[in-house]
């Protein structure tokens, strides 16, 4: 009874103190940025992060670097690759096979533990992911990293600052693949008893931020690395704090209460009230799309280009934008408008129901012979935006031109498996499309994986079993064009074919929305899944 009385006393004391002190008055050090993430856990801290794009954003490009990085310095121009820990790189001009790449590494770069970054460290990191019998091989990091670098065959240090990578076949997209691979410190791993669990608590990379506190599932804190090799990216803040807040309303409440200064992905219905309360809503286009991936299995109605074009012309994308409180960019292609690989497709994704009906009639469908299609959708999922109302909107649009849509609603995790299995697998139930949002940041994830013949599911992720020798030829050209500017032109040709052949039902792109306290200054939202936190300041 005495204990209960004491506890009650404490509770009352806390309530009393609370009423006299507002939460927002809690003093934090100047220049501390607290971010409410959508992830339910702190991303893997050992180097190769988990939790997809969000993991790399917060724990990859903060604590670590790749040989090649993404340029995150502009919100206007398309985000492209930039030299990272490799100051220069390219395929060896003397190699007729075009498979030998030489990377000149940046000299004088130190890991957070003080050890030097060298070519041997790069080899050690590749072994960490690819060599199962290496002492430092880490299953968890390998699971994340191995599939990102399919081109890498062999690798070796030529000297302290020169690295050689030989690809399995000529592949000019190698730099994009390497932008996924983060470099952990071999010396720190040795020092911590060659133990990745210990390393997770005291990680060491070369990045602009050093991790100082890691409470699993609750909190991570970072401070600037004043010795960062890229002086333009030395953080201005005193501290960066990451908090996992997977529930959208909890994130909004935390922002409103002043518990965080920044939240990822505010719920669309909270946007207006946040704006009215003077919070900043930051949006930009980035390489994401929300599509229906169409089945090209025998008998699929989408094998007829007229049907594909009709469906694309039947979508009222501006109407959908209203539905989502403006938080979408209507699709003009598979890539967002303004993307460096967009090109000049001739098929315009306008809203033209009359033309859609005409095309369907030409394809043999009409009031007497309606087209019925079945589509797999999920009720939620990473990057899926608001899939239920959006799909119902599409269903209504398509019904208006004579396409009757039936949905198979499945759990998101199950949907990923169905997507991996492919349209011909029984798991897909003979459905004609799957509503899947895509990370489309590099040539492989953006274009190659969806439509290359060799990557038909389940071998790869060409879910619809599309196969066109002309497309394969273009993809081969991408892999064999080693001049970056020339390569962009080829990638544009691939994208033009995507759009002109209406290979997907292209609906929208997410806006990468985040809400910020008015105190947050200097954030430049790059057109990228990853972001740079170095130029940010937070007013007192």
């Amino acid at each position: 009874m005495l204990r209960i009385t004491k506890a009650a006393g404490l509770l009352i004391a806390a309530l009393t103190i609370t009423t006299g002190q507002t939460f927002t008055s809690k003093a934090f050090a100047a220049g501390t940025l607290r971010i409410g993430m959508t992830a339910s856990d702190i991303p893997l801290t050992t180097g190769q992060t988990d939790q997809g794009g969000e993991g790399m954003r917060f724990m990859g490009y903060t604590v670590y670097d790749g040989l090649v990085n993404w340029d995150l310095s502009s919100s206007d121009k398309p985000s492209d690759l930039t030299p990272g820990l490799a100051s220069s790189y390219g395929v060896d001009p003397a190699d007729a096979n075009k498979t030998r790449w030489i990377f000149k590494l940046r000299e004088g770069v130190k890991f957070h533990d003080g050890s030097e970054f060298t070519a041997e460290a790069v080899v050690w990191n590749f072994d960490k992911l690819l060599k199962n019998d290496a002492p430092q091989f880490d299953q968890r990091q390998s699971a994340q990293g191995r599939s990102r670098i399919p081109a890498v065959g062999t690798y070796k240090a030529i000297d302290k600052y020169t690295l050689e990578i030989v690809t399995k076949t000529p592949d000019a997209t190698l730099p994009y693949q390497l932008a996924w691979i983060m470099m952990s410190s071999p010396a720190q791993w040795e020092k911590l008893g060659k133990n990745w669990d210990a390393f997770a608590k005291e990680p060491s990379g070369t990045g602009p931020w050093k991790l100082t506190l890691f409470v699993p599932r609750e909190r991570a804190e970072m401070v600037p690395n004043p010795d960062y090799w890229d002086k333009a990216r030395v953080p201005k803040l005193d501290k960066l704090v990451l908090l996992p807040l997977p529930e959208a309303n909890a994130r909004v409440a935390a922002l409103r209460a002043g518990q965080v200064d920044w939240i990822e992905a505010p719920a669309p219905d909270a946007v207006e009230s946040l704006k009215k309360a003077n919070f900043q809503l930051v949006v930009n286009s980035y390489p994401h799309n929300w599509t229906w991936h169409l089945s090209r299995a025998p008998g699929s109605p989408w094998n007829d280009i007229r049907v594909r074009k009709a469906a694309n012309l039947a979508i009222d994308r501006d109407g959908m934008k209203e539905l989502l409180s403006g938080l979408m960019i209507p699709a003009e292609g598979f890539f967002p408008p303004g993307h460096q690989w967009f090109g000049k497709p001739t098929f315009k994704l306008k809203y033209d129901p009359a033309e859609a009906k005409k095309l369907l009639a030409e394809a043999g469908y009409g009031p007497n012979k309606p087209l019925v299609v079945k589509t797999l959708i999920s009720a939620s999922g990473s990057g899926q935006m608001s899939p239920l109302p959006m799909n119902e909107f599409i269903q209504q649009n398509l019904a208006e031109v004579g396409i009757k849509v039936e949905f198979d609603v499945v759990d998101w995790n199950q949907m990923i498996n169905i997507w991996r299995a492919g349209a011909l697998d029984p798991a897909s139930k003979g459905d004609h499309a799957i509503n899947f949002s895509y990370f489309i940041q590099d040539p492989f994830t953006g274009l190659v994986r969806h439509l290359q013949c060799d990557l038909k599911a389940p071998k790869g992720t060409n879910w619809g079993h599309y196969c066109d020798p002309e497309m394969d030829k273009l993809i081969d050209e991408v892999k064999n064009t080693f001049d970056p500017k020339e390569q962009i032109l080829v990638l544009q040709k691939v994208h033009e074919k995507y759009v002109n052949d209406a290979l997907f039902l292209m609906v929208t792109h997410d806006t990468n929305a985040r809400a910020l306290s008015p105190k947050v200054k200097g954030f430049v939202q790059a057109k990228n899944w990853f972001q740079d936190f170095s130029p940010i300041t937070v007013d007192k």
Partner: protein
Amino acid sequence: MLLYILKRIVYVTPVALGVSIFCFLLVHLAPGDPLTAIMPVDATAAQQAEMRAAYGFDKPLPIQYGIWLWKVFHGDLGNSIATGRPVLSEVSRAVGNSFILASVATLIGFTFGTFFGFVAGYFRDSVLDKIASAVAVLGVSVPHYWLGIVMVIIFSATLGWLPPTGAGPDGSGNWRPDPEHLRYIILPAITMSVIPMGIISRTVRALVADILAQEFVQALRAKGLSEWGVFKHVVTNAAPTALAVMGLQLGYLLGGSILIETVFAWPGTGFLLNAAIFQRDLPLLQGTILVLAMFFVMLNLVVDVLQTTLDPRIQRG
């Protein structure tokens, strides 16, 4: 009594085994793939197969169960697929946090529930009874998820008095019952206490009213026993049933609440379960459910023994 306790422990063994089979199979019945949590979505089939073998998911279910149970007997719940951390440490930390939250919610819920129940029972059909009953019905009826959001809107977003999420200014690592940390617990604890408060209040009210109407109470009063003396008799007679209900409620509270802990980002078992379910983190899911289920089994055992101690007549055969 000792024999009775031993018998009850023996009875618990098959229940525990059944619970372990149920925990293991249940998570395997759910659609989805645990490897989704740890591999990029476009990992090739060969890489998935390699990873499946590395985590032992390529083995038949009975063998997987056998391996898992063997490890459980040795105090090893395996490692989380999503985080790589030992499940035991993840669950221990979460159970500790849920325990803190549940303790405060218990204090609030049981105290007010018992108080309202006695008031309503003693002053049956009076205004006090109606008010106390209304509070109890409200407690049972209002969805606590909704109540939590409303409280966050009022006390955090609008008034800025209390923090809406988390377990403390620096996480739950160094939790201690000081005002700084208690501020974080107030909203989730009140939200969590509402349902047990309502249930206990209604139970106690019915018990008190029933006991007061019995002839032995009239006899006690006729003998000239003071109201305090009668009250003590009422308490003694109401205790076994009230205790059983409280035990069950305590179990629910200690088991954590997925909804409340998610709304308030409280790092307890509910928050952990939510993450494990969404990530299909099978070892974490199995481990957490097993620990919680075993907790319920043990709690029921304790309540049974306690009830029997208070009233030997209800000893089970």
